[in-house]
């Protein structure tokens, strides 16, 4: 299993903070800021160990990516899915479909501690 964490988040600052938290834990981080680009990447690239998916994205929404690609492609069966949203209701709605739901504002420490527990020990 790779150490790759895919951050799909359109806000540059948040993406940078999340990336810092994940790097701090030891993940290799790839950031995608656009839904369309994420769709291409998910269809063609290697399945990451973890996806941190923002539900509100330009062009193709996080919800679409989740339902139409990630959940349908067996390649992502082992990938840990964490969704981020500001809408608590939306978070609840997807609670069963993903591994973790994080409601914004997302704490740097919280994300770091969570992912550190998830990361396989070497």
């Amino acid at each position, binding site marked *: 299993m790779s150490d790759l964490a895919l951050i799909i988040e359109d*806000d540059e600052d*948040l993406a940078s903070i*999340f990336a*810092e938290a994940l790097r*701090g834990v030891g993940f290799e981080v790839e950031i995608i800021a656009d839904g369309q680009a994420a769709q291409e990447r998910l269809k063609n690239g290697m399945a990451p160990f973890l996806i941190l998916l923002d539900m509100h994205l330009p062009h193709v929404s996080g919800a679409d990516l989740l339902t139409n690609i990630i959940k349908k492609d067996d390649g992502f069966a082992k990938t840990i899915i964490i969704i981020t949203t*500001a809408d608590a209701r939306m978070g609840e709605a997807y609670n069963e479909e993903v591994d973790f739901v994080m409601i914004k504002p*997302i*704490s*740097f420490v919280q994300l770091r501690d969570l992912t550190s527990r998830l990361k396989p020990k070497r």
Partner: protein
Amino acid sequence: MKRQFDALLNVPVSDPDDARRRKLLNILLLGTIIATLLGLVAVIINTVTQAPTDETETQYTLFGIVLATVGILAIYQINRRFSGRLAAALFLLLLTGIFALTDTPQQLTEGRSLFLFTIPIVMSSLILASGASFLFAALSSGIIAFLALSIGHSVNLFGTIGFFLLALVSWLSARSLEEALRELRGINANLDQVVIERTKALAESLERERIEAGRSQAILNSIADGVVVFDTNWNAMLANPALIGMLDLPLELIVNKNFRDLIEHPKLSPRSRHLLSAMMEYDTQPPSFRIEWDQKTLSISAAQVYDYTKDRFTNIGTVTVFRDFTREAEVEKLKSTFVAIVSHELRTPLNAILGYAEMFKEAVYGPMNDKQVNMAERIMKNTQRLLGLINDLLDQAQMEAGKLTIQMAPVRPAELLENLHSVMDQNAHDKNLRLTSEIDDHLPEVINGDAARLQQILLNLVNNSIKFTEHGTVHVRLFCPHENKWGIQVSDTGVGIPESEIPHIFETFRQVEGTATRVHGGFGLGLSIVKQLVNLMNGKIDVKSKVDVGSLFTVTLPLVVPEQSNEKWRIG
């Protein structure tokens, strides 16, 4: 001709009995004059054909005829202009006088023309007064008695008795005639009154109906909402001017047309067309909904119209009310856009600030000194506060819009307390307060509830207690007072709430003493939101407080234990 004849006979007076008698007199006068004229003709024929026997008798007869004619005309005039009774009396006296002079006293006493006297007796009860027949019976008896005595004969007693018997019969029949007429007049008068009343009532009800219809029409015409009434086949029977203005269609494209034709109009959006078709297919009361017509948003509500006839209700159609909702729809859209912007666009940069401050604090980019860490903490704390305020405002806005709903799902009360501690322990610690909590043994491990909203109630209550407590303890207790109730209790050792302020503490944007908002910070929305959430959950909230001793908030909620086995949740 007949009218002129009637005018000749009738006497225009108000008393119907008087009029009847005077008319009768006129008829008799007419009859008499005709008889007189026939007498004249007889005299003339007699004179011409036969040899003149007695010149003097003929002259007397002619003189009598002229005198009778003049007398009758005079009586007629009196009857017409002056008095019916006087005329009748004069006529009867004249008649009696003439009869008295017709025969010689000798012939009369022997009874030759005695029968003639019966005529004025009978007439008098008809044209003068019912009792007058006795007077004329007496008069006639007097005359024949006088004449008999004058020639030395005895009085004709049988004749006199006959006169009085006749007078009695005349009197009785005249009286019964008068009574019958009076009764008939009474019945007629009643009948007239009834007819007048009925006519009046009918006229009034017609007038009322006209006014009512006019008023209904005026209301329909001036009402701002568009109203259209359909029959059971959805043919539009009537529409008001507001609807015509709203749809911007001529009346003839609406009224007397089927609704199915109208909804094919290109100004209607496909979704709206679908909704309207659905409305027509509902058997029961259709709900209210919105459609898009051209650039407008119209709110539609429809109601079945029932007519109560023959002891049952019959559906006679549908009345549909169109309201121009364009402006409201815009405002609503603006409001939800605003809420979406605030919730996403405002929270995202705050999240970034929070994240960067945490990174400072966690010394991600190298060691920090105490002051720097402290400053990072302050940035974090203030950002959290700002986020809290935004959340409160959003919740308030959503509650006002009626969009905040409670979504029930299994909840673990223990988890609510764990989350509470993870968020509020630091705040309590910062003020040197102790935050403690306990759960009643009776409370089930898993209950039904809206986890996010229950957490919010707990956080707001504890946050409020910490804010108004300077030293001591804030204690949280989850309890189960009853098999179908559970509750949250938050007690503190804070400043307390004056009794007079307790009724107001759940009001929006309110803190004790009004200015406290400035001293303690915040919008004063926390408790108001708690109260509204508790109401949405069908629970209630109570406060007990004593100034300088502390406050106790108690929330009581309906307790429902989820049907699923608790095992699953213990593992979770």
